[in-house]
């Protein structure tokens, strides 16, 4: 149906770059999440695709057609805003019908298509309500229907569920995923919630300071982060400074084979890759606290150099506060100057994918 190609797009505001030389290909029917902290440029990138900001450099192509200089009304994109931006002076029906009326569709066709769109988002009998009479979740559904009814080639979602509560957010994102895969519509989804990105995306684009840090499917992002930033942003990750000498990384509590050049490095260890064994060593780390999540326990360990480590343990584990423990590591990443230089241990099927509770 539609392919989106972004070629070397930048956006500068005054002195700095909001988006700096981003290139990305989104395949037909793919759902790509733009993930990053606030100020990372993800929303600016989305708004450039929608036509609300003009790139300082680069090109945006939809189905090989250059749309870089087109205004929003002439682009085949549909945007859902975080604030839903429904037109409060009209009822739900008129909100959804507006775009069709602009296209001068016959009255009967408009009625039929609006009703289909409302049914699709589960609001079949809500056409005559005023938008202000709806709950937050319903308003966001109407906003989604308003975009989908125009059958855009590219659907753009700008943190659509950020203002909703946790349960509603999870339900709506499942619905969006269902609708998206049913319609096969090419979708870009901006979020700063990693769980949202992991749950929805075919591919995740992790952004930081206007630059793409990594573009990969969720499992790859989680298991093979290319940079220290990606590793820290997706899931929770313990970082520990080591000194590498002759292929061995040394820390007071850990000694691991690290086949990289000598010098300082940062080890990244997922909580689920840590194991604990009681220790008699006086300088061993101590258990600070243990939180029971039902499915697992998350244990905080304070090392003597002040590093705090988190370990994920089976729920039946008994780890009293103050217990001295040795750390066991089944998988780890090695970073130097922010980039991953080595990775060892469990990959793929060996580790269950877990979403952080931190």
């Amino acid at each position, binding site marked *: 149906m539609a392919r989106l190609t972004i070629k070397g797009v930048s956006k500068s505001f005054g002195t700095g770059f909001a988006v700096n030389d981003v290139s990305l290909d989104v395949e037909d029917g793919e759902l790509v999440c733009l993930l990053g902290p606030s100020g990372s440029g993800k929303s600016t990138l989305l708004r450039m695709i*929608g*036509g*609300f900001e003009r790139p300082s450099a680069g090109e945006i192509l939809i189905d090989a057609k250059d749309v870089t200089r087109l*205004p*929003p*009304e002439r682009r085949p*994109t*549909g*945007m859902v*805003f975080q*604030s839903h*931006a*429904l*037109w*409060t*002076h009209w009822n739900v029906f008129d909100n959804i019908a*507006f*775009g069709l009326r*602009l*296209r001068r569709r016959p009255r009967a066709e408009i009625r039929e298509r609006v009703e289909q769109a409302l049914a699709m988002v589960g609001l079949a009998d809500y056409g005559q309500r005023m938008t202000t009479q709806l709950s937050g979740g319903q308003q966001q559904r109407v*906003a989604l229907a*308003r*975009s989908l009814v*125009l059958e855009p080639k590219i659907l753009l979602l700008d943190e659509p569920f950020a203002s909703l509560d946790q349960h509603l957010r999870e339900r709506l994102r499942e619905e969006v995923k269902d609708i998206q895969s049913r319609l096969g519509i090419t979708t870009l989804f901006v979020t700063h919630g990693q769980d949202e990105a992991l749950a929805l995306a075919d591919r995740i684009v992790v952004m930081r300071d206007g630059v793409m840090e990594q573009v990969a499917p969720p499992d790859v992002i989680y298991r093979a982060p290319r940079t220290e930033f990606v590793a820290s942003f997706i899931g929770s990750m313990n970082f520990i400074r080591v000194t590498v000498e002759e292929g061995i990384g040394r820390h007071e509590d850990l000694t691991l084979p690290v086949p990289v050049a000598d010098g300082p490095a940062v080890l990244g260890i997922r909580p689920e890759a840590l194991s604990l064994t009681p220790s008699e060593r006086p300088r061993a780390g101590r258990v600070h606290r243990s939180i029971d999540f039902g499915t697992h326990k998350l244990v905080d360990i304070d090392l003597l150099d002040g590093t705090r480590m988190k370990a994920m343990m089976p729920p039946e584990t008994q780890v009293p506060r103050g217990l001295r423990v040795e750390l066991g590591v089944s998988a780890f990443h090695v970073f130097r100057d922010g980039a991953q230089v080595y990775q060892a241990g469990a990959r793929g099927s060996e580790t269950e994918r877990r979403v952080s509770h931190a």
Partner: protein
Amino acid sequence: MSAIPHRPVSSAAPRIAKPFDWAGLVFAILLTLVIAVPLLVVATWAFTEVWRYPSLVPQKFGLRFWSQTLSRADVWEALFLSLRLTAVVTALSAVICLPAAYAFARLKFPGRNLLFLSFLASHAFPKFGLLVAIAGIFLHLGLISTFWGVVLIQLVGTLMLMIWVPVAAFQAVDRRMEEAARDAGAGPLRVFWSITLPQAGPTIAAAVLLTFVGTFYETEGAWLIGAPQVRTMPVLMISFINNQLVVQYGAVLSVMLWLPSFLALIFARRIVGTGAFARGFGA
């Protein structure tokens, strides 16, 4: 058993819920007296034929002065002139000020703040001095004693209200709403017409209405520029009161002049929801 703990609660509740506001009542009555008594006196005068001191009520009621006033051609001329004048001024003011207000609210251009403040400037000087200066200019341009001369002078008086209130109203419109309309396929003009204007509508309607009423009663400019050829209702009323010692003529005219503002206020209450003004001013 269960009735016992209920009793003190139910007897205590009303005492807490409704402490009677005596001070408020006194203020309300005083305010009503101050506003209503002069109105009542004028209204009474309009329907009075004989009312001599020291009687509290008129000796003779009647409609004699109504028929005398209404049979005068100059009264009707003045009324229709006033309506025409006010309609033209309000419409022109809207056509000029609303797009300007939108520009002030949404666009950034050099000198924006200075220009914006300049609309306040015409209200920062003693008005009569400003009017005399303008009258001097109009005399050169041959605008004195003409319809369009009065239109111009009254237009100046409407600028501040018609710029400042709509600017605030437009600024209060969520930009995302406008962007969503662009996204749906509407061009900038269509967005303004279909989204921005209706969203800012109640506040702007209130501004237009106030401009209409304010212009209808505007006297100084109309008198200074318009006299003697162009005589609006308020100007006529003043000349009645100044030239003739019959109180009733003035009273009848002022009761007649209530009518448009009264209708305007009823209309305002219907279309302008409460709080539209507060919203317009950013509350």
